[in-house]
């Protein structure tokens, strides 16, 4: 699947396109198919997101998982600071990245 990501213009936070809005959680991302460029241009023009781009991902019962490790680090947060990730209470969250 193709999912769309970028950074929030004001805060710089990593965000994912849900079909309606930009979410902080990769599991909310939808398959944008071949609409990535169209959505990206529109949302960037509305200043809802900064430098959006499409990436490859997979989806299974555990949720959406970006194909590349760099995007998985973006999705979670720094693996060396679990307290600053989106799953601070899950000590094994870093394993999802690897």
């Amino acid at each position: 699947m193709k999912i769309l990501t970028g950074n929030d213009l004001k805060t710089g936070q990593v965000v994912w396109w849900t079909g309606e809005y930009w979410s902080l959680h990769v599991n909310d991302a939808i398959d944008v198919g071949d609409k990535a460029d169209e959505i990206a241009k529109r949302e960037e023009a509305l200043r809802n997101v900064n430098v959006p781009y499409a990436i490859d991902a997979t989806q299974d019962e555990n949720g959406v998982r970006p194909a590349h490790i760099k995007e998985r680090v973006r999705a979670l947060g720094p693996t060396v600071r679990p307290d600053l990730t989106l799953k601070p209470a899950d000590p094994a969250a870093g394993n999802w990245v690897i």
Partner: protein
Amino acid sequence: MYKYDSWDQQMVDTRVEEFRDQTRRRLSGELPEEKFRPLRLMNGLYLQLHAYMLRVAVPYGTLNGAQMHALADIATKYDRGYGHFTTRQNIQYNWIKLEDAPDLLADLAKVEMHAIQTSGNCIRNISSDHFAGAARDELIDPRPYAELMRQWSSFHPEFSYLPRKFKIAVIASDTDRAAMRLHDIGIQIVKNAEGEIGAAFYVGGGMGRTPMIAPCINEFVPLDRLITYAEACLRVYNRYGRRDNKYKARIKILVHELGKDEYTRQVEDEYAHMLEQGVEPPFAELERIKTYFADPAFETGLSTEVDRSDPDFALWVDRNTHPHKADGYVSAVISLKPVGGIPGDASDEQIHLMADLATEYSFDELRVMHTQNIVLPHVKIADLPALFAKLDAAGLSTPNLDQIDDIIACPGLDYCSLANARSIPVAQKISERFAANGKGAELGQLKLKISGCINACGHHHAGHIGILGVDRKGTENYQLLLGGSEAEDTSLAKITGPGFDEDGIVGAVETVTDVYLAQRTDGERFLDTYRRIGMAPFKEALYD
């Protein structure tokens, strides 16, 4: 240390307000990202993996207590309670909001700091010896010359759009503590046979994807021609440096392709021409700058003895202090490398504490080391027990300067959008491994440096042991290098062979240290043994 005059302050304040307006226009949609990006980068604001990242310049690594407190306050107010001290003697904040950036820069300006020229193809922060102004072995204090170069290079219209970024280091001792020959220009202040003070120019060094050691192109430039000669070096580069290929755009490629002799000839021609133009700043300006770097009021007649009955304290003194030019004083290194910690990271509370300790024990001065530690440059030996106790209580007393766990590590894939692999977890595992197996204490000086990509921010080319993280088909892989040095015996490390996974690289480091322990002779450092026995025994242990 240097104090802004009204011109300095006005320049920085004006730049803050200019950026405030640029940010407003970006947020309102007047400026698209492609136009705003170079503007924010000129002010040190990057967009990294998780958020905007701000890189703050610390000129030649020198800070006072008020500045250090301000850096801590910024970590609290605008970031997530910590900062990261870098291999360029700067500090980075990882979680900055664009909408906050102008206010942050205004707060910095209040303590005479900024983030200008910490990005872009310009002359970056001038780096220097972290013991400058304090070291017993230095010829003179190099910081006035570094400051002169900072002023010359700030907003220099001719050098704001160079082919690539440009890094200059200035030192003044035969011991190189600034990786001088791995800079675009390395300047060593020297004394000639006639007893005159001048500057040796090394040009065309660097790390990155094409590491090179800078050759000396002029062994003695008079100090009152320092700027003129540097400007001649820059002019030749600006004119002929490659602009068609980013990967061949650094000055090291130009010097290599022209050859040292031809590059030098062109610089000398330009230099002769420029001497007629008279671009050197007035002598009075250098003298004005020098007044800010006068020695603090060192006491005399101080004891050089201290009670060493506490073995932890004695070990810290042996490893983390450096001889001072004034009797009864030392420079004390505060390690930001606790076992299992993140190299270079410090919490806001720790930064405040270091600022307070500088005020109490070090004439209000601190230095950032390119090895990502902090120096209190002027500490009375008699004050060391009290200083150690306060550092120990804050988790800042790790006695590991230049030991295997004093690891340089770039932010790597945990933070950096350019990285291919994570650096910090590898550093953490290595320091934990050697703390657990007890071998670290046997190894002596062993400089280990880790980069998460070929850009080499973690100086892996210059590590006695270097580690380079690469992306191998979407997974992290780590190449091992041996034999590098950033010191006066500068050398570039060589790759041992096929890479390792994250756990494998930790074991590989242990394997090569075992070879060293088995093969060393009396007094040999790891690097000395490697140079004596070569790569073969290490490769055999790693791969056979």
